[in-house]
């Protein structure tokens, strides 16, 4: 159809005749209540998308304030305790209200039933409940913020959180407790849906890798989050009643809190990154026109990450006085968890090899992900080695490391996914050149922000302080400048995606010529997703099948 020399696979319908479909999930019912009481997974995904975008920009504003304070060595913008509240709020909002639900609750919610050929998730009402719980959690977090803030850090470290602070620890802990249940319900829904709702012919090894990675992440949500819940309950009881479970004066052990907290919070980083890896698998395959290299290796590596992810939590505690022998074991296990991540990166690279690569916006973000996640992951291996960890822990090296994974990795993946599926979700294209500009801006801004922090950390600048010795200023100024660029990079999509809702080109059903089931239905989809239950009669990422199918259509019409 299109000449082989084109630099894009984008194929839009003829704009002079193209029309949006008459009936789709967005206009199927009208009125605010039809949204607030909806059971449609696609609408809930949109509700989630709006809410997490809201919280992302609040969390981002705190990041901006932090970088602004760190522009100069002196504590001149805010007092020390206000600064503590800033980074606590930044952490709580970004982790619990943005990163954890980011891809699963939006793209996952929207796509998993469609990718499996189902009409909805197994439990639509629980899905809606999960969004309301998220909102309650979010509102309580904002309440804690407005009432005067909380300054424990997102880790609620005892005895700081139980004995020494009179800020709104309880409000924030309740918020996270509730938001945690929202995440449990999402995970539970996904697991049941993936087990029980696959369409005829959709075997486990025909599922898109996006679904596999969500399956692994859901296991972590379901198994890990309750442990965080109980840890927070114990912190609350310790704070209210002084029951002594974490209080050394009464025989309690603060380290117990660390074990319980990190038993969730380490797997939580895989909850955050795994769905992003699923997005990358889809994007890389589509824009190289090739089946993902080593499909089953990539699928199993997701499960392996989930499995190993549960046995590495103590690497957050190497300097907290744990036994040297257990530290050795956990150091080894930490190295092991890098293996499945590396399998993914290598397989994506082999997918690119000899592929017909094109550089649309989602692909640019995906390339950003691969580079930045690799740096983030490898520095994680540095930190997993005991000697290096003692030197680098509690410095900006840690900050740079997890921002490379979470922002450079996950946020890039999230934006890749939002751009990739935007035409499916809204039926309209975003402006291509502007979005490429945003992707490049984000990449440059990100590196400018966080590469200097690796050096700062290596030189010994501790994290969580609002002031620092003057010799660190140059690198800090670079970092703040980068954060500004990054901020612009994130504002751009907000603006042009909003613009595209009304003025974007009409996308048609399959603008990327992708193979997934979601691309074979209308954009935006109808409420029931499929007119009749699909039958999966080919492997995932089968571009020959797609070509044959397209040819058949042409002949039939002709």
């Amino acid at each position, binding site marked *: 159809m299109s000449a082989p020399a084109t630099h894009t696979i984008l194929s839009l319908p003829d704009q002079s005749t193209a029309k949006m479909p008459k009936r789709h999930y967005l206009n199927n019912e009208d009125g605010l209540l039809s949204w607030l009481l909806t059971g449609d997974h696609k609408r809930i995904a949109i509700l989630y998308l709006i809410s997490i975008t809201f919280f992302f920009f609040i969390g981002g504003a705190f990041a901006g304030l932090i970088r602004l304070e760190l522009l100069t060595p002196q504590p001149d913008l805010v007092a020390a305790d206000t600064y503590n509240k800033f980074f606590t709020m930044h952490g709580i909002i970004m982790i619990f209200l943005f990163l954890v639900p980011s891809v699963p609750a939006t793209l996952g919610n929207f796509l998993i039933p469609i990718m499996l050929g189902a009409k909805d998730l197994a439990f639509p009402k629980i899905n809606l409940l999960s969004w309301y719980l998220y909102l309650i959690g979010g509102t309580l977090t904002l309440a804690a913020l407005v009432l005067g803030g909380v300054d424990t850090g997102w880790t609620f470290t005892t005895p700081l959180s139980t004995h020494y602070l009179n800020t709104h620890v309880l409000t924030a802990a309740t918020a996270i407790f509730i938001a945690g249940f929202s995440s*449990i319900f999402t995970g539970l829904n996904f697991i049941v849906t993936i087990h029980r709702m696959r369409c005829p012919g959709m075997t486990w090894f025909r599922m898109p890798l996006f679904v596999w990675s969500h399956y692994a992440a859901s296991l972590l949500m379901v198994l890990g989050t*309750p*442990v965080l819940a109980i840890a927070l309950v*114990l912190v609350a009881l310790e704070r209210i009643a002084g029951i*002594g479970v974490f209080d050394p004066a009464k025989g309690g052990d603060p380290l*117990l809190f660390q074990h319980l907290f990190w038993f969730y919070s380490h797997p939580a980083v895989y909850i955050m990154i795994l769905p992003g890896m699923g997005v990358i698998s889809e994007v890389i395959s589509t824009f190289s026109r090739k089946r993902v290299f080593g499909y089953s290796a990539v699928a199993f590596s997701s499960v392996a990450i989930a499995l190993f992810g549960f046995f590495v939590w103590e690497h957050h505690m190497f300097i907290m006085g744990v036994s040297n022998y257990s530290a050795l074991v956990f150091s080894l296990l930490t190295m092991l968890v890098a293996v499945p991540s590396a399998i993914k990166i290598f397989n994506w690279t082999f997918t690119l090899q000899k592929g017909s690569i094109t550089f649309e916006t989602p692909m640019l973000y995906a390339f950003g992900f691969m580079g930045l996640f690799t740096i983030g992951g490898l520095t994680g291996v540095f930190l997993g080695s005991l000697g290096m960890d003692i030197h680098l822990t509690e410095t900006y090296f840690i900050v740079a490391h997890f921002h490379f994974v979470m922002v450079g990795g996950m946020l890039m993946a999230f934006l890749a996914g939002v751009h990739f599926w935007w035409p499916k979700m809204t039926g309209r294209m975003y402006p291509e050149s502007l979005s490429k500009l945003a992707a490049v801006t984000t990449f440059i801004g990100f590196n400018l922000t966080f590469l200097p922090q690796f050096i700062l950390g290596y030189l010994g600048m501790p994290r969580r302080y609002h002031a620092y010795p003057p010799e660190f200023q140059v690198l800090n100024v670079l970092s703040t400048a980068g954060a500004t660029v990054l901020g612009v990079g994130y504002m751009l999509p907000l603006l042009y995606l909003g613009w595209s809702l009304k003025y974007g080109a009409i996308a048609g059903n399959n603008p990327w010529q992708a193979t997934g089931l979601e691309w074979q239905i209308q954009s935006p989809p109808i409420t029931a997703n499929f007119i009749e239950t699909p*039958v999966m009669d080919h492997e995932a990422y089968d571009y020959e099948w797609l070509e044959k199918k397209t040819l058949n259509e042409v002949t039939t019409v002709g």
Partner: protein
Amino acid sequence: MDSAIATHPHTHETAVHADHEHASLPQHRHHFETEEQQREAGSFGMWLFLLTEIMFFGGMFFAYLLYRNWYYPAFAVASNQLSVPLGAANTAILITSGFCMAVGVWAAEVRRRKMLVLMLVLTTVFGIAFIGVKADEYHEKYEMHHIPGADFSVAQFVNPAAYGIKEEPLNPDMAQKTEIYFFLYFAMTGMHAVHMIIGIVLLFWLTHRAWRGDFSSGYVAPIENFGLYWHFVDIVWLFLFPLLYLINRHPLH
């Protein structure tokens, strides 16, 4: 074009689905292909939810394991303050309640409405009896100043003779650790009781629906899933009872 992927001829499965459709229950939700699928999804979801519950209680069991190893003498002495007969009676009550629930699930499956209602009522009654006994035990602990917090007193463990208790006195440092034991006792049994109360509230609702005849026409998923939940709560107690009440009651003692 939308149906293009469904070009595959109708397979055996789709044909079977079509056969089922004429007999669909009113409770059948549109997004499930078959009732079987709906029922399986529901019970699988319940099992997963119970898995999260295990992890939730697991945090407290982990704390118990740690502190019992560290402060065994305090745990043993404090455990002797609990009434084994009351605990054993409660165990029996709860098992009976669980038995009634199991019979109830069976009654729903064979569509016996009155028997189901009776069994749900019995389940509720035994559940409430359990909570009553538990409340009595809690009240006694309150009178003895064994509730952790500002009011907690270790006097009985430092000087048991003065209170007429036949125990070796603990040194004050170890006696202080009984607070941890009692905290775990209250946290674990309290969390268990919260689950019981939620269960009892659900039982009222289910009994009402069973009376209306909602579960007399082959739709038993809520009864079945609630049964799973109720048995889970039973099982948690079956762990709590020996761990909290019977710490040092082995023959060698």
